[in-house]
């Protein structure tokens, strides 16, 4: 790995930038590894990186059915925040936000983390009460969040329509100033490059077709399209395909996979300074550094692996966006796409051990996994390295669907995250 620095950039400029090595080599699988991570998205690559850099395990393969970062890592709306209601969630997501800070320097890769603030709008009395409860809960947990009046919202985000006759009147909003966005592809690329430099093998276009278990029930390795690869520890970080991978080990999971859509507009000059979310009308919007408006829609109502969603879902979101931001009513949309999100019954992730010895899981992030990328990677790595969960992810176990000890973020916000 050649470091990115001013000096190296200058030196390369004189050579026509022909001396940069590849970010990561495309490896053929070895016969055996200490740890196999299934899924080369941000979470899986992050886990490999932290295993190698923090927890001293370097003989790792990350196996990916498609291409690196081509799943939900490359399909989300890049929003980062940690203003979740419950203590467990606040600690989990804030662990990630703390890691986002300084990640560009740590990886020597510009992930473009921009703390431009996430403003969550309140449109009715229930929204106001819910937002203020969130703010109080967040502050008790050391997570910044503050209440803005409608006028303060308008000052923070000028395109906002706060007129009392608006279709979705703005009564105020909750602002997390540390929230913001990052460049999603860069996160995967940065982790991949640094992990590869530490000796991690990244194996793309190699679908896992089975999980082999020994007579004692423990995992022995994975069957893949390119043959059997042995490992005594397997971490699955496969998002929408988690149910499929887990069935290979004989496990049934409390997950359902839905399409979630997003879209971007034509690029325009900087007009939108922050991230605005409106949970009650399903509108999530920010502007990328390229100038495109990045808009997130809701999920479709049915289980699907098609990576595309219905048009009426997009229409519903755009109708709300045009009402809240009338200046965007004539923007043209350039691209729309879908990702498959794995949703748990309580809308909180499952991150920890499974009933199968040596098999670890990181799933159920639903519609909001990007913000957690560094935290999820770190905690999955910790859990694999110590064979026991960290105290931050211990509550996010699989057992809670039997014991009833939910972390019910669905009920807390009445919306998927």
């Amino acid at each position, binding site marked *: 790995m050649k470091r990115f620095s001013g000096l190296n950039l200058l030196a390369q400029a004189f050579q026509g930038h022909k001396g940069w090595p590849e970010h990561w080599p495309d490896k053929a699988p070895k016969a055996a590894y200490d740890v196999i991570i299934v899924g080369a998205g941000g979470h899986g690559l992050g886990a490999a990186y932290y295993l190698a850099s923090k927890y001293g395990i370097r003989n790792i393969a990350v196996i990916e059915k498609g291409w690196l970062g081509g799943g939900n890592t490359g399909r989300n709306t890049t929003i980062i925040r940690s203003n979740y209601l419950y203590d467990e969630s606040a600690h989990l997501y804030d662990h990630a936000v703390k890691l986002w800070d300084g990640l560009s320097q740590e990886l020597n890769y510009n992930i473009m983390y921009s703390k431009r603030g996430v403003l969550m709008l309140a449109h009715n009395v229930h929204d106001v009460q819910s937002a203020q409860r969130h703010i109080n809960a967040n502050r008790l947990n050391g997570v910044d969040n503050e209440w803005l009046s409608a006028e303060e919202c308008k000052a923070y985000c000028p395109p906002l329509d706060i007129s009392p006759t608006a279709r979705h009147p703005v009564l105020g909003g909750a602002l997390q100033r540390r929230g913001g966005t990052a460049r999603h592809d860069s996160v995967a690329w940065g982790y991949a490059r640094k992990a590869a430099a530490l000796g991690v093998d990244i194996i793309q276009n190699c679908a896992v077709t089975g999980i082999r278990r020994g007579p004692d029930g423990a995992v022995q390795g994975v069957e893949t399209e390119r043959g059997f690869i042995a490992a005594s520890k397997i971490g699955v970080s496969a998002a929408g395909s988690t149910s499929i991978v887990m069935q290979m080990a004989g496990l*049934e999971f409390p997950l*359902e996979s839905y399409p979630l859509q997003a879209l971007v507009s034509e690029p325009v000059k900087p007009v939108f300074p922050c991230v605005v979310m409106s949970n009650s009308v399903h509108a999530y919007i920010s502007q990328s550094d390229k100038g495109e408006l990045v808009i997130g829609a809701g999920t479709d109502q*049915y289980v699907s692996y098609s990576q595309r969603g219905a*048009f009426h879902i997009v229409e519903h979101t755009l109708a709300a966006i045009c009402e809240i931001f009338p200046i965007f009513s004539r923007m043209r949309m350039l691209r729309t796409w879908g990702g498959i999100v794995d949703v748990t019954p309580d809308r909180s992730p499952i991150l920890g051990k499974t009933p199968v010895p040596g098999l670890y899981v990181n799933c159920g992030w639903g519609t909001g996994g990007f913000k957690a990328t560094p935290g999820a990677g770190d905690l999955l790595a910790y859990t694999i390295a110590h064979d026991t969960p960290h105290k931050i992810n211990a509550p996010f176990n699989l057992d809670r669907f039997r014991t009833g000890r939910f972390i019910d973020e669905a009920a807390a916000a009445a919306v998927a995250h």
Partner: protein
Amino acid sequence: MLLIHCPYCEEDRPEVEFVNGGQAHIARPVDPSTQTDEEWEQYLYIRRNPRGRHHERWRHTHGCGRFFNAVRDTVSDRFETTYKAGEPAK
């Protein structure tokens, strides 16, 4: 948007008239008070979530208002068939 055939109305109608009711043919416990935690977990939360053939419930909310079952491929989203509630799984 999906076009869905309602087996009661016997018409192909747009998806916005329907509400998806999740996985079909999950048997309700006959004697709830004797259910173990594992059985409750299985009944309430564990789902097949298959990649391929999926049995699911739909309700024709903005039509006849009745529940029915469907078989749909979750990769192509194409319906194989729909049939009335109470009929055996197809």
